[in-house]
């Protein structure tokens, strides 16, 4: 008789692993770009550049993966980090709170990308 409950951890860890790659490879340079290179001007150069990138499906998929995988990666770390800090909550509630937040924000991201 098999009474073991299947763990969610492999799914969470795959997203965590993929997100870890995104945070390592993309986020440092992206933060340099948004913080120091994309200075707004009256010619709206930056606006038109990003609008043209995100009009293409490759740009949409790219930004979606960057944002959603970063969210899944970071909520996974905070979720387990709180456990390390002995912050305890209802198991189901904590799962819904952290992975649910990443999921809801990812859906919002996809919706906003599709209306561009």
């Amino acid at each position, binding site marked *: 008789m098999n009474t073991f409950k299947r763990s969610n951890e492999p799914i969470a860890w795959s997203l965590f692993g993929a997100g870890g790659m995104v*945070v390592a490879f993309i986020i440092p340079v992206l933060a340099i770009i948004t*913080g*120091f290179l994309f200075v707004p001007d009256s010619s709206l150069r930056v606006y038109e550049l990003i609008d043209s990138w995100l009009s293409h499906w490759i740009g949409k998929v790219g930004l979606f993966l960057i944002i959603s995988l970063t969210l899944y990666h970071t909520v996974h770390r905070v979720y387990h980090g709180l456990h*390390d800090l002995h912050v305890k909550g209802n198991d189901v509630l904590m799962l819904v709170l952290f992975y649910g937040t990443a999921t809801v924000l990812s859906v919002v991201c996809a919706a906003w990308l599709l209306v561009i």
Partner: protein
Amino acid sequence: MNRKPYQQPQAATWWFKNHFYRFYMLREASSVPVFLYAVWLLLGLFRLNQGALEFNAWLALNTSGVGQILHLVVIAAALLHAYTWFQLTPKILVLRFGNFRVPDEWVMGGHYVTWVLVTIGMLWLAITG
């Protein structure tokens, strides 16, 4: 579960006692600014949908003094993550071809080379458009 295994008591500040545990916690904590940055990018996407002027206001916040200091925090957190992540990859990504095992240094080096190429490529894209 009927078992009630003994759990040795552990203070919530256990990680504070040791240099390695403190660094571990710093690495885990680096995910907080990165999470906030992802949410901030999402807000930028929302502003982009509102229009050019609204998006320019978001860009202006990014490149303001406070915005740039916060960006530096995110960059530092992401770099700390990248360094620790690439240290781990040879342990997870074990490549074998017959009896030959790809050395850890090659796996790590490959990640660093890719990192430099991605960084230069994205900077080039952002500057030349």
